[in-house]
């Protein structure tokens, strides 16, 4: 029998909160981080809001030389992974060749890369340092280097499900004994590419995103990073680590339907959720709530609701489907890990988070979304869903 994988460290740095304790308050009290954006010029777009990391001085954090060589996503990742490792107290507990890092990434260093491109197009000089983090794998490399994680270095890039998959994969590496501990999660930053891109597809809501509400128009973009430290339970207990939660199981798959539109039947999404539950050993009746992908696009929210009905049948109305994206924004490559951390914190507090920004009941979204407020729960198991461009789907089953 595989050993249980436990979460012994959590770290987060995102637009909604600068550290774990602030993020816990934001999730449990329903404090949205949505506000005006000034990272780049958003005036040409109908939607001008997002959840931006503010009051952040990379030079103060990393020094001028290192800050210049790190992409914004690398910087976020280093901060969040650093908090998770410190929170775990794992330093010195394992051999470096038994420690790994698994990162889910998205646009990665595009924020800096597009500055280089703009300068080149305008025939201005540009620092080559702007290109150093252009590929999504660099965050894993700099985290491995900074913390001496020499056993594994890997990056998953399945768009908005990247970091959920990285957590599932990281848990598997620990459960099977290939590594003693893994730092896994994701990091992503706002960029002109993604902001203009989603606007060009007309899926960005000019108002703060309102998942599962009538009149919703789409996403609100965000940025940040979240990481967790995973270990086998026996080893974690031996060293007296605090156990924040468990990765009980996961499943992944592709819809093979369309690059941007979800399969309207929700059948593959339902299959992935069901497979994740099977892999976890938990029953449908154990699930207290589902942290939705819940982007706030008209189609996503209907399909996810449909998938819930396929998985839970008549019980679907009793299993809240909650989106924390109105708090954090849609953090793309980091979304899965940010929401996994939110779910673990909420499980630990016995609280099902509220879905903010309710605008009215949508007859096509006819489940319980906790629009009216957070609520107490005795549940010890929750699912976190991530859907992505290309039809990539990952479901994590989390426990306390």
């Amino acid at each position, binding site marked *: 029998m595989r050993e249980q994988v436990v979460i012994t460290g959590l770290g987060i740095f995102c637009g909604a909160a600068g550290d774990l304790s602030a993020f816990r308050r934001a999730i449990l009290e329903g404090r949205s981080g949505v506000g005006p954006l000034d990272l780049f010029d958003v005036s040409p777009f109908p939607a001008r809001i997002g959840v931006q990391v503010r009051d952040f001085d990379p030079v103060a954090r990393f020094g001028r030389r290192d800050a210049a060589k790190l992409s914004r996503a690398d910087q976020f990742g280093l901060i969040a992974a650093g908090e998770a490792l410190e929170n775990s107290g794992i330093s010195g507990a394992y051999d470096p060749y038994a420690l790994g890092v698994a990162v889910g990434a998205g646009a990665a260093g595009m924020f800096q890369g597009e500055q280089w491109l703009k300068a080149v197009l305008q025939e201005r000089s540009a620092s080559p340092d702007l*290109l150093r983090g252009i590929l999504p794998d660099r965050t894993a490399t700099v985290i491995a280097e900074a913390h001496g994680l020499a056993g594994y270095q890997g990056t998953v890039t399945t768009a908005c499900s990247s970091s959920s998959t990285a957590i599932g994969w990281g848990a598997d590496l620990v459960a099977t004994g290939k590594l003693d501990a893994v730092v896994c999660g994701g990091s992503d930053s706002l960029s002109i590419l993604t902001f203009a891109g989603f606007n060009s597809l007309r899926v960005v809501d000019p108002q703060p995103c309102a998942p599962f509400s009538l009149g919703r128009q789409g996403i609100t973009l965000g940025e940040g990073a979240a990481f967790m430290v995973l270990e086998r339970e026996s080893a974690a207990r031996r060293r007296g680590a605090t156990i924040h939660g468990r990765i009980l199981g996961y499943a992944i798959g592709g819809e093979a339907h369309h690059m941007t539109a979800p399969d309207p039947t929700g059948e593959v999404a339902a299959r992935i959720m069901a497979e994740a539950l099977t892999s976890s050993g938990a029953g449908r009746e154990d699930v207290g709530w589902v942290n939705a992908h819940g982007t706030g696009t008209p189609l996503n929210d209907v399909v996810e609701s449909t998938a819930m009905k396929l998985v839970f049948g008549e019980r679907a109305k009793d299993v809240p489907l909650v989106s924390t994206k109105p708090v954090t924004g849609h953090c793309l490559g980091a979304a899965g890990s940010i929401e996994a951390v939110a779910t673990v914190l909420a499980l630990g507090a016995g609280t099902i988070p509220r879905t903010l920004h309710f605008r009215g009941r949508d007859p096509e979204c006819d489940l319980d979304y906790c629009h009216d407020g957070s609520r107490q729960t005795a549940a010890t198991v929750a699912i976190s869903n991530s859907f992505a461009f290309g039809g990539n789907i990952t479901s994590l089953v989390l426990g306390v």
Partner: protein
Amino acid sequence: MQQDLKNIVVTGLAAISAAGVGVEPLVAAVRTGNSCLSAVPETVAGGERQKWGRAEQFRAADFMPPLKARKFDRCSLFAVVAAGQALASAGLAKGALPPERIGITIGAGFCGIANSEEFLSGYFRMGVDGLSPMLFPNTVANAAASNASIEHGLQGPNVTAVQRFCSAESALQLACRFLEEGRADVMVTGGVDELTPRMLQGFRALRQDRNLAAGFGEGCGMLVLENREHAESRGATILGEVTTINSIGRLVAGRETEAVRLLLPASAPARIGLSGTADLWPALEAALPDVARLNLTPITGRSLAMGGLAMAALVATLESGDTALHLAASPEGPYYAIAFHGGAPA
């Protein structure tokens, strides 16, 4: 990190490279050892004498109508065509298996960058009027794997891995694990990469054009993997077996020798294949001094995900019963050693 595998076999191969479209031209290039790299056009090279390994013989129109090809980026075109050829070589027609039992993991190098550049260039030149929504979906690194999954109806595990020069090896490691776990019966895996003039400009800016990016290549190498029992039950031809995957994330200062020991098997293989910067790591050369080696870099070019082509070439040239070790490395890690057996030894 050591992963001993039981009964994961290779039943299909595909290759698109500077040598041509298909495994045969790649094998022919390997056997002659002749370089397929060509001179970078003067307009692209900016006065520098450079070579690159563009897959010049690849024509999307040979495989799909032009209107359909237009919706894909170049990496996706490579992946869609190569995945189709790999599945065909494995004898797997569309619909032969339940779609949820076939998955895909691809190592992607610079996938998504070309579309990102084109999309952003439109915006920087013309503002919102220059935005082309059609380009945006394929700016993600997973576009190649996802488009291949859509075209071939693969609904099993679907992951794109990017990790320096070991992206394809990272993807193969995932594929083997998914087969071990029973998440899929068949996995299509490999690596895909593209090469554009703007990328060369970036390499020059980073002063890599005379270093690791000299003679960069593009293309796609794919392998079809499945459990031996599954392959035998459907009468598939077994081309080889993946027996172990050893990897480390990065070198620990002062413990480099231990890293080589963690990577390499106890007994020397008959042949080694090299990818990424493995040919530049002296410790590996020293550990396996007299073993025949297949280094694709001078033949079809180096890139982040060319390990897919290197592994396909290695398996395609393995005699039945031979052992071979595929070695891949990146300057800042990771490092992979993947062992293959040729043919179908029980």
